[in-house]
């Protein structure tokens, strides 16, 4: 039974593996200071931005690739990557009709058609979307509606031009270029991304969303996202990603920074579905991402929710620095690995302020020949009185060729801190299956039911608009592989 289902799943093809036939303008392969100057010039950037990039690049040269994660992969050849790839477009787009129809088709295939967005524009629940293809933001919807509220939501490149003071103030304040190997690389060569600023007292009326897609061959994607929630503001932000099927491994090294001011709240949700490689582990995206938020002032809150189903190798730890008193950090994650996928993911909760609270719920599911690791750090610093953390990391194993691992680090330096961590690893309980089956539910449905229940705690945290897509994705990744 299990083997049949597994075989079925293994034969399942990646559904988003199409290539969009759009002409793109690429930089030559390789990385040197000229390429960085080229990117900067293409993007018409001010001198300070170029200086920042070069500083990051020179620092990056001194670094060595890190190897501590529980993953193995061929070392990316950083000279064999195209660092700048733009879908060709003639002029600034004013309406959706002017977007290349091929591109629109791409997004329709992804199930997030912009047409639908248009049609839904009368409805209350709407999503503003920023599309990033290869390295460059293609189109941001609902910009005007948002502008009325004073919300800035645009591509990173635009923000550098139009809001340099905000970029200067916040960029690198959470993830400095010297943070790690891939953050330094990103700081040097990032091409675009999204920027979002919610002014004081504004509750963002719609979900903001970025869709990332790697399209061209041989490119790497290096985008940056910066979200700033000013005092008493709230925003829910969604991120989704897909890539075509290619035999080569493509590198995705993004940086996401979140700043929450007093009473500000940011909810960041990701559905990551980069191409995971074929059933023999060939190809697929290397997803090496640095994501970090800071609860800068009192009573702020940052919440990460992620559904990780794609990528050949995932290596990311969305973190929260709880600096303000009474601030709250949350991390909800479902990570699914199949075939030869490898994931080393988790979170860091750094408690600095008083009465700070954090919650970590991580659900790992491994199938096939994959390895799925949770790695997390909870640090309660001296002076972080009455800090509280609760962590729960569960792993589900499907098949006897996969691995599930848990590596939590807990460091406590304050006597009033209370930290709890629990983790379990098991397969689906025979008794649970028996219970369902004795009530007339067939094996596969019973498994579906149990897995759904297993992930529910996390899926419930996703915004409504995203939950549907996430469930669809989980179904694709999991259907039949359980047993």
């Amino acid at each position, binding site marked *: 039974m299990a083997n049949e289902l597994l075989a079925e799943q293994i034969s399942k093809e990646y559904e988003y593996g199409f290539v969009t036939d759009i002409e793109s303008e690429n930089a030559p392969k390789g990385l040197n200071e000229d390429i960085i100057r080229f990117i900067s010039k293409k993007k018409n950037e001010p001198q300070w931005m170029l200086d920042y990039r070069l500083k990051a690049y020179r620092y990056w040269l001194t670094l060595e690739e890190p190897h501590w994660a529980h993953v193995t992969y061929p070392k990316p050849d950083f000279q064999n990557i195209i660092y700048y790839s733009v879908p060709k477009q003639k002029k600034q787009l004013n309406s959706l009709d002017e977007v290349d129809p091929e591109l629109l088709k791409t997004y329709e295939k992804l199930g997030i058609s912009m047409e639908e967005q248009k049609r839904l524009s009368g409805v209350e629940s709407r999503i503003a979307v920023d599309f990033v293809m290869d390295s460059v933001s293609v189109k941001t919807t609902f910009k005007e509606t948002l502008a009325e509220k004073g919300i800035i939501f645009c591509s990173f490149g635009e923000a550098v031009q139009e809001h340099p003071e905000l970029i200067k103030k916040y960029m690198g304040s959470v993830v400095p270029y010297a943070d790690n190997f891939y953050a330094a690389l990103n700081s040097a060569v990032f091409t675009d991304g999204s920027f979002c600023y919610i002014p004081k007292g504004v509750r963002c009326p719609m979900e903001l969303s970025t869709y990332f897609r790697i399209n061209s061959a041989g490119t790497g994607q290096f985008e940056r996202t910066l979200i700033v929630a000013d005092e008493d503001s709230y925003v829910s932000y969604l991120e989704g990603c897909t890539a075509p099927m290619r035999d080569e491994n493509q590198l995705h090294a993004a940086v996401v920074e979140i700043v929450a001011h007093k009473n500000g709240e940011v909810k960041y949700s990701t559905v990551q579905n980069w191409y995971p490689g074929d059933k023999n582990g060939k190809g697929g995206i290397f997803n090496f991402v640095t994501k970090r938020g800071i609860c800068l002032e009192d009573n702020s809150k940052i919440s990460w929710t992620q559904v990780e189903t794609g990528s050949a190798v995932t290596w990311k730890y969305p973190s929260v620095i709880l600096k303000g008193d009474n601030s709250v950090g949350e991390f909800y994650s479902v990570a699914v690995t199949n075939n030869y996928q490898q994931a080393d993911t988790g979170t860091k909760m750094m408690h600095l302020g008083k009465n700070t609270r954090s919650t970590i719920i991580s659900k790992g599911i491994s199938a096939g020949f994959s390895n799925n690791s949770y790695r997390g750090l909870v640090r309660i610093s001296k002076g972080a009185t009455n800090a509280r953390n609760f962590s729960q990391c569960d792993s589900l194993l*499907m098949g006897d060729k996969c691995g599930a691992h848990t590596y939590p680090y807990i460091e406590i330096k*304050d006597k009033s801190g209370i930290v709890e961590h*629990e983790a379990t690893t098991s397969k689906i309980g025979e008794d649970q299956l028996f219970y369902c089956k004795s009530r007339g539910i067939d094996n596969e449905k019973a498994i579906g039911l149990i897995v759904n229940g297993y992930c529910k705690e996390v899926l419930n945290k996703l915004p409504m608009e995203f939950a549907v897509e996430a469930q669809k994705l989980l179904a694709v990744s999991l259907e039949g592989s359980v047993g």
Partner: protein
Amino acid sequence: METAIKKNTITDKLLAEFEASKPALFGDLSLREEAMRSFLKQGIPNRKSEEYKYVNIDAMLKGEFSFFTYRPLMVKQISNTRFLKGAINIVLVNGRCEEKLSDMTSFPKGLEIGYIADASFNEVFQKHFSKYADINTDAFIALNTALANGGAFIHVAKGAVIESPIHLINISSAEESTFVNSRNLIVVEENAQVKLIESFESVDCTAKTFTNSITEMVVEAGAIVDYTKIENENEQGYLINTTQVYQKEKSVVTANTITLSGSFVRNNLNVALDGEHIETHLNGLYLTNENQVVDNHTLVDHRKPNCNSNELYKGIIEDKSSATFNGKIFVRIDAQKTNAFQSNKNILLSDEGTINTKPQLEIYADDVKCSHGTSTGKLDADKIFYLRARGLSEISAKKLLMHAFASEVVDAIKIESLREYIEEKISKRFE
């Protein structure tokens, strides 16, 4: 650059000591040389090495060290350390077996105890020595394998049931800073049963003692071993204590590690479960205060199916002390139907204290039940209130709660007189 020079000096000193002591070393010299090469390759671990992330070994190894370990002690001086009633006491001073201080006259049938150096021509020794503690996994294992010049050899014959507990008393005693490498080999043959206690004490010790001790223990099929370690050195004591247990099918091992004092205690307790239907119980208690650093590393390596392991470590951290718990459950691809549990609980009593805990699961088999849990907190205010409402003072309420917290581990100790001894030590500590 400066630190590099320092690092070199201690490594150089160790190398010089190795060259000088070579002719006197017991056992196979080529193994010793290989171990030394491995040590030189690995170097003294620093804070960048994942396994020694929370301790600063470099700082502990600063200054001059003597490798001359002989200390003449009188029976009277060590009488306090012979605390177990009815036990067979073996006294090792700085790793050297002291026959006149030990009960080495007659042993029960099936039991053989001797100096490790004397045993080196023994068949059993040659079959097992250095087969379990892998020199390439830890610099201190390599160093010990190269330099070890003392320790005990214990052999329990097939089917022998040894009623009296065997008490290995490790005494640190020095007037100038001393580096000790001591090595024990314990072989328990099929269906044998034995109770072992290893205690670490300081006697007439006025200078730093850095003890790098390794115990290799082989537990053959169906054997039952009850093993308790008590670490009770003074503030001059620095101790790296590696225990490598190798279990065959249907054997049962209980290992209790009680850390009471000593400036620095590092316990590496590695258990390999290489057979079916094995049971392993690991219990640990660490009560730290002042500037103590206690670092407990455990590895439970499930190699075969149908085994059970259970681990409970508890700690109370006071003053500026720091405690680390790093436990790993490793389930190999063939080890189906494994049940492995791990729990680590800590109470932090001061703002200067630190707790680092890293409970890990690394699992490659699917039909398993593995879990770990860890919690760190303060004494429960509700419980204190409950006791105070019944007339207890705040201090005695707290003492009672701490005692209750510790007793979960202490209760697991089966030898009654030993349990009483430890309880008495704990009571004294909380006074």
